[in-house]
């Protein structure tokens, strides 16, 4: 329950001896004849930041929607902390500790920053037992903007608010859906610092999807690459960058 100190440098938490926080087992999803996600197996360990990248249409968003219960998987299973969450609805998955941000609907514009976080924080027993609203605002560098109406926020602050909202559910695993899209360089580095801090001081486990390859490579401990629905490689950033399959997916 210690309040995070944003100035503390990130200290990677070693994976615990227990099982993975998130385990995808041969997950597939077909839309008609098209296999948007094809037999993807993926593990995510405690305190790890995993980047998920891939060219447009590779199935990243679909996989994300399967994990968070927006779409059910056609086959395969999703296991969170050893519990099978396949087929559960989004709100039930959130209550079990997996929280995601939304690309375009991440904040509720008419409410103030504080009211946005409060609305979510008060919604479930799990979130009320977690960190206080003030802690969340401070962690996301929003304490000074608490009384600002969310619709008036600059882009970067709005993005951090959407992360604060996701954190208000007191998650074990934070899934960020393209948190850098449309941000300028300064705002991008603010979000990256925030994610590092969350891992560093809270030990948060993060699944990170974005198009900004450079940022993903800089931030993540491990990167998985999707192409045409299949996972083509998975490993530390410096290895993935050199992987011929990855180069082919992006250039070929």
């Amino acid at each position, binding site marked *: 329950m210690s309040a995070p100190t944003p100035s503390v440098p990130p200290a990677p938490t070693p994976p615990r001896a227990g099982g993975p926080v998130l385990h995808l087992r041969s997950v597939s999803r077909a839309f008609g004849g098209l296999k948007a996600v094809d037999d993807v197996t993926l593990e995510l360990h405690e305190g790890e930041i995993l980047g998920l990248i891939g060219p447009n249409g590779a199935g990243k968003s679909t996989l994300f929607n399967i994990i968070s219960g927006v779409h059910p998987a056609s086959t395969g299973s999703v296991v969170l902390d050893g519990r099978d969450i396949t087929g559960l609805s989004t709100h039930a998955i959130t209550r079990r500790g997996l929280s995601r941000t939304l690309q375009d*609907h991440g904040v509720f514009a008419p409410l103030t920053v504080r009211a946005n976080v409060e609305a979510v924080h008060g919604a479930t027993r799990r979130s009320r037992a977690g960190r206080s609203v003030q802690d969340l605002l401070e962690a996301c560098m929003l304490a000074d903007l608490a009384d600002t109406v969310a619709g008036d926020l600059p882009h970067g602050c709005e993005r951090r608010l959407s992360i604060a909202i996701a954190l208000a559910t007191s998650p074990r695993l934070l899934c960020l859906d393209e948190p850098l899209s449309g941000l300028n360089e300064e705002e991008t580095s603010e979000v990256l610092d925030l994610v590092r801090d969350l891992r560093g001081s809270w030990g948060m486990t993060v699944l990170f999807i974005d198009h900004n390859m450079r940022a993903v490579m800089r931030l993540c401990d491990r990167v998985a690459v999707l192409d045409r629905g299949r996972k083509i490689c998975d490993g530390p950033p410096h290895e993935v960058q050199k992987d011929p399959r990855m180069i082919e997916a992006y250039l070929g």
Partner: protein
Amino acid sequence: MRSSEWLVPVGVTAAAVVIGLVTGLGDGVGALVVPWICIHALLAMAMRLVMQVGEINLAVGAFYGIGAYTAAQMNLLLEAPLLVSVVAGGLLAGAAALVFGGLVLRVSGAAFILVSFAANEVLRLTLTKTEWVGGNSGLVGVFADPRAVVTAMVIVTGVVALLLVMLERSRWGRQFAVVENKPLLASCAGINPRSVKLIALVASGVICGVAGGLFAHYSSVVAPPDFSYMISISVLAFVMIGGRDHLLGAVVGAAVLTYLTEEMRMFGAYEPVIYGGALMIAMVLMPKGLVGAAHDVLRRVTDSRRGSSSDPTGEPSPAPREKERAS
């Protein structure tokens, strides 16, 4: 803005209590219109409550009817006091809303509108065929002191308005707003949109039932035609014309339209035509309703007064100020 939001319900409640005491004592025009304004305001607030979670419930008439029949039977069979009968009506209507919502809230939008409309008519037609509640002619002879009933109506309306404003400003109210406007965000926040909608529907049902119980004691007769879908449609009109964005809109819409209906009786056969025409004109010219339009006018006046020295356009400009603070 914040303080004015508090002033309104407190003002309405105070005014309601005063009017209640005055009309309870006297018997002018108010004694004729005020009871109906109260019933319609209660129903309009109940309608708006479900609209706040993004659904339009055309079964308002059914819950109103359940409350009225329950309270009437309590009075006729058990000779229960006014408040006991009314509370029983509210509880039974709330229970009916719980069953209805539990079965039906898996659908939303147009499907929910149709299902609720159908439910209203099923109940009304069932009542016409049910002999132990009087069939087509309904229940007759509910006895109560008219002054006590009218006073109770006005006070209940004020109290319900106050409770609803408190609800709106509470944790639940904020969840309502998120469920209505961003259902996916609500789910991602661990909120089950269906349970939030069910809570709103049950609370709305209780209010409708209470309105029905008061109506039964006021009119002393309850019959199926009083609870057709037409009452639901009228109540929807009250909310839309008053302005759905503010609780006061429901009350104002109910008051204005109820009063006008009374005044328009002199047009005889043309009454529905004039009424319908007024509805259409009002909706097209004032999409935010009477309260929304009044609010806009007020804001323009205060802005031009405040901004005449610094801001020549007189337009509100909150965004740049917030951005300054942000950077």
